[in-house]
């Protein structure tokens, strides 16, 4: 193990994700500059060639996602990163990757919108991430880090899950998580023992026997329906096996605050402040936004607890929370992103008190 993989570092979230990807064996990166994630291609353009990998700054977001498709079809661990408007452009390619079962990691350091919007931290891309942002009725794996450490950890998990299920995986971060610096303890990547070799991919050297085709076109009677059923069966398995969440002070909680990413960091402080004031409040933080941790909501928030969902948008994840616990009243507090609109822990605490005592 390299010494650099044991030392505690002070780095940006965007750098952490780049470091985690390289450690996980990602050797191909295709991207296009956009704030607030440009530290990722900058770091990778410097470090990836040293590891024998290839960094390519593409002419567009559209080209980068399709280069990712090509690299993935050839069996490589590869990634792209962007921010909201760029992710919109990539959605066509993500749909093709989903349809042709190409793994690959897409990082969205989300900024505010719609349109050009702003460059502030935002969670306005929840819908386009978890609901299948492109055409055709598919899903991708969506992981939501809330710290620099998780930027490092979750990108490794994203590669593993993506390869295991042959489903593209997205890291949904935001400008705060991407741009802030905090402590990171890097650790060596350990490949899961059960990760299969990519028999389906176009291998190096040349084709061994049978022709390999990576495609999403199915025109024969019943073929496309069967293909879609196969994709959705994988989503069901992921729902069963791959849900991840963090439970903070939930065992005796009479009120459950739920939030992910930066909003969860704010909410965590608000929950601590509430506990200091004697309120029985906990935090349920989804780490996997798809598959959504329905099971956790049923366990911690489906038995008479009050639920407060906080997001950096006008209400998106709250829909899934309500679907997970349909008989529970879920209140929502959100502020659309934009300069000066990032909520404070005290602001969340006021919401907690308001609904706790109601």
């Amino acid at each position, binding site marked *: 193990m390299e010494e650099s993989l044991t030392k505690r570092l002070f780095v940006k979230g965007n750098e952490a994700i780049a470091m985690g990807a390289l450690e996980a064996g990602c050797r191909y990166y295709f991207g296009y500059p956009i704030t607030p994630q440009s530290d990722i291609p900058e770091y990778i353009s410097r470090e990836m060639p040293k590891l024998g990998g290839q960094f*390519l700054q593409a002419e567009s977001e559209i080209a980068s996602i399709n*280069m990712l498709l090509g690299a993935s079809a050839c069996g490589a661990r590869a990634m792209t990163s962007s921010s909201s408007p760029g992710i919109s452009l990539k959605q066509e390619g993500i749909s093709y990757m989903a349809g042709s079962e190409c793994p690959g990691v897409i990082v969205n350091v989300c900024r505010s919108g719609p349109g050009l919007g702003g460059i502030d931290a935002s969670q306005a891309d929840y819908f386009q991430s978890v609901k299948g942002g492109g055409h055709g009725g598919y899903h991708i794996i969506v992981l939501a880090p809330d710290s620099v450490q998780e930027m490092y950890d979750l990108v490794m998990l994203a590669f593993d899950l993506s390869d295991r299920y042959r489903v593209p995986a997205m890291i949904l971060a935001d400008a705060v998580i991407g741009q802030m610096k905090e402590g990171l303890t890097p650790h060596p990547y350990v490949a899961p023992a059960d990760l299969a070799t990519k028999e389906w991919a176009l291998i190096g050297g040349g084709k061994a026997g049978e022709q390999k085709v990576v495609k999403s076109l199915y025109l024969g009677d019943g073929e496309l329906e069967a293909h879609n059923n196969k994709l959705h069966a994988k989503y069901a398995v992921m729902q069963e096996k791959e849900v991840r969440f963090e439970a903070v002070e939930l065992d005796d909680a009479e009120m459950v605050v739920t939030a992910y990413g930066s909003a969860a960091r704010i909410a965590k402080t608000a929950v601590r402040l509430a506990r200091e004031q004697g309120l029985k409040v906990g935090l349920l933080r989804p780490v996997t936004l798809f598959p959504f941790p329905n099971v956790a909501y049923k366990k911690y928030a489906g038995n008479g607890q009050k639920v407060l969902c906080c997001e950096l948008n006008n209400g998106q994840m709250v829909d899934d929370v309500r679907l997970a616990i349909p008989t529970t009243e879920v209140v929502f507090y959100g502020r659309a992103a934009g300069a000066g609109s990032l909520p404070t822990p005290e602001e969340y605490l006021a919401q907690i008190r308001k609904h706790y005592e109601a």
Partner: protein
Amino acid sequence: MTTEMKKIFSRPDSLKDVQTHYCPGCQHGTIHRLVAEALDYFGIKDQIIGVASVGCSVFLYGYFDVDVIEAPHGRAPAVATGARRVHPERPVFTYQGDGDLAAIGTSEIIHTANRGELMTVIFVNNTTYGMTGGQMAPTSMPGQKTSTTPYGRDVSTDGYPIKMAELLSGLDGTAYSVRVAVDNPKHVIQAGKAIRKAFQTQLDGKGFAFVEVLSTCPTNWKMDPLAANQRVADEMIPYFPLGVYKDATA
């Protein structure tokens, strides 16, 4: 009396023994064969990666016995770039129509050529969108009636037929850019040589190689195959002159 028969002409190994879905008089079949002959000549059938585009040639994997990745509309050069970077030892070709390459995929083809990606691009120009039913293509001729230019292509509002072989020849990354046709035996032989040279260019690591092939679409042109073939000579070649526009392989 017995006659000893010697086989002097057969299907290239790189093509599968199947019927195609192409319309009568369509020249995709001829162009497929020329590409397959080049793959056979270099013995790269098992190495090459084909990237299929969107349009009539989407079923590339059904006819060529090579590994294939299917690309979104216009994105074949980007997909091929990703593949080529991962497996530098495996040659790559894309096979794209005029709508795919010269309209929705203009950005990808220009930047792929400009990077000098080691790949061979076969560009089939038949002046129309074949698969979607004969709409105006970026290469439709001035005055050409299509299903979306019912009064004929008006260059004052629709612009001019785009000349890709010339356009790409202006880029430093392009090593070889040529326009050929397959409307008569002489042209077919010339096209075969150009396609072979385009693969040679890639295999020699010289840079990006581009072959524009003028082709027919009798169905959407609403012509019989012979009349369609004649249109290539009478209308297309005068506007899209055949020839080598760039050869930096020497």
